[in-house]
């Protein structure tokens, strides 16, 4: 962090930029590659047709994921602002969409950091195999000290609280240092490190006895799955969550790009890197699960799991049984930590950028206030004996009624009400090398909303028909439904708070110059 004197109020501070396209791509990949790539994709693929899942997966990637990624890029890059400012510049009435995305990021950041803290502790536990021979009992009982009933308690669990504090301290340093010295550098170091560690992990897993059985289970195609609409919905759902689209991250990151940047060419690299990492994760995870099944004398189908169960129950078990298990544990949990941090900083940047734009604050002030606020919420609610229930509920609801519903509303408003797709398409094609024109508009206006409607409807029906996970109704009502509704209400309230006089919404000569330039170019 440098300490040059802050600009006087009269000289507007220039918007930060990524110093090169390469660093932007690295940061965008760092954001997209997160815990979901490692612990969600392998199971989703296995559960939805194995090798046959590749077809719906690629179709969803090309027909919805990449088009939506380009939409985010176009909005952020053309209107050169945080999500609320970019949408406001697109149309005044669209500002609440930006705030909705900012609030979704607030919720995600608060609980996402907690999982990184667990992974950090498990990296250390791997040396001694602290879980002994009961990984499940250790995780839920000894480590998290999960209360028997869901509720809201403030019984703090120190073994989670302190690593979480450490994660937040590290993340706050990165955020304060800014786009070039913080976010770019963190990604330039952590992403290559993550890839190297993960490749080593996969190689180690492939040499375990039983690995081939695991890969058989993962890749053997069940062609009948292709006739099941649920499988296609799973493919679209996974692509949406995996690419980090639709909740402000890519809008924010692309607003830091220089003017003449190849947006779609860069986006293709980001999208395929994300998928490439997922395939790698599938190979590594199933090779390890094949070994676990063989050691337990059961079939692979008896040991497959995802999410927390995969990372904190199955993997510790594998670490205990595998030769050089400690190495494997450090590689696996270290990968989770690095993949998590590079995603967490992108989620936080959405909020920091929005506060900077709205209030006209400088980088240091905005990033400190925002990060400390989110860290305080995260530390107050999650490292407790009831934190796991809260994490589970907020994750499920913010995914369904924050990200998915928010993306649906955004796409419909942009495409059908404000009819901005031709404008955005022209912006994408101005410089970019991968041109999509009409196809892109059809995909964004029709295919993407249809897929999202199906997902939102599905989620709504399943969550309304039974109380989520059988938790108490008041609990799901407040932290599930209530939280989801509050995001929309608070987004509207934030829209009505006037923009600061110092804000870029009022005075942004850089942006005005760009608009002029665009107009000139269009007139030619």
């Amino acid at each position, binding site marked *: 962090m*440098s300490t040059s004197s802050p600009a006087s109020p009269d000289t507007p501070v220039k918007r930060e930029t990524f110093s090169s396209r390469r660093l932007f791509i690295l940061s965008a990949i760092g954001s997209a590659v997160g815990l979901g790539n490692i612990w969600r994709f392998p199971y989703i693929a296995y559960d939805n047709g194995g090798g046959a899942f590749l077809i719906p997966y690629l179709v969803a990637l090309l027909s919805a994921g990449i088009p939506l990624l380009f939409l985010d890029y176009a909005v952020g890059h053309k209107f050169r602002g945080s999500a609320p400012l970019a949408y406001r510049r697109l149309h005044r009435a669209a500002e609440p969409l930006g705030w909705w995305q900012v609030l979704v990021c607030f919720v995600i950041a608060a609980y996402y950091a907690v999982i990184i803290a667990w992974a950090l502790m498990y990296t250390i536990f791997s040396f001694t195999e602290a879980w002994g021979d009961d990984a499940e009992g250790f995780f839920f009982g000894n480590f998290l000290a999960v209360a028997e009933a869901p509720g809201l308690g403030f019984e703090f669990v120190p073994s989670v609280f302190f690593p979480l504090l450490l994660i937040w301290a590290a993340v706050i340093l990165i955020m304060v240092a800014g786009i070039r010295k913080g976010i770019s550098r963190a990604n330039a170091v952590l992403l290559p490190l993550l890839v190297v560690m993960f490749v080593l992990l996969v190689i180690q897993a492939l040499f375990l006895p039983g690995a081939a059985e695991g890969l058989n289970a993962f890749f053997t195609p069940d062609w009948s799955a292709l006739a099941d609409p649920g499988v296609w919905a799973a493919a679209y759902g996974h692509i949406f969550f995996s690419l980090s689209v639709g909740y402000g991250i890519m809008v924010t990151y692309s607003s830091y790009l220089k003017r003449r940047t190849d947006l779609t060419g860069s986006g293709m690299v980001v999208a395929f890197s994300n998928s490439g990492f997922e395939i790698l994760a599938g190979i590594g995870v199933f090779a390890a699960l094949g070994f676990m099944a063989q050691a337990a004398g059961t079939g692979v189908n008896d040991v497959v799991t995802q999410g927390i169960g995969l990372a904190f129950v199955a993997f510790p078990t594998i670490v205990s049984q595998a030769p050089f298990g400690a190495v494997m544990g450090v590689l696996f949990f270290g990968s989770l930590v690095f993949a998590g941090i590079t995603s967490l900083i992108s989620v936080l940047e959405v909020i920091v950028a929005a506060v900077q734009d709205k209030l006209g604050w400088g980088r240091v002030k905005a990033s400190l206030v925002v990060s400390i606020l989110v860290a305080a919420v995260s530390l107050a609610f999650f490292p407790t004996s009831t934190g796991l229930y809260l994490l589970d509920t907020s994750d499920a609801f913010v995914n369904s009624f924050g990200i998915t519903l928010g993306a649906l509303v955004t796409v419909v408003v942009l495409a059908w009400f404000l009819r901005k797709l031709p404008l955005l398409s022209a912006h994408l094609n101005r410089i970019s090398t991968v041109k999509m024109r009409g196809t892109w508009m059809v995909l964004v206006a029709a295919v993407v909303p249809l897929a999202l409607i199906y997902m939102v409807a599905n989620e709504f029906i399943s969550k309304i028909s039974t109380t989520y996970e059988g938790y108490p109704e008041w609990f799901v009502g407040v932290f599930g439904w209530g939280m989801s509704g509050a995001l929309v209400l608070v987004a509207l309230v934030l829209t009505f708070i006037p923009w600061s006089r110092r804000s870029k919404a009022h005075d942004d000569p850089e942006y005005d110059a760009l608009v002029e330039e665009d107009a000139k170019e269009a007139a030619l």
Partner: protein
Amino acid sequence: MTPIAITMMIIAIVTVWGGLALALLNLKRHPEDEGALPEEPAREL
């Protein structure tokens, strides 16, 4: 591994990693617009 699983694994790797290779190649053939590069670095406070 069974032949069908090996086949699907190869197809998955070739399409996804091949897609990445093509995307990288495309980007390499269109280097950043150097004319727009000499920009004042943004203030980092």
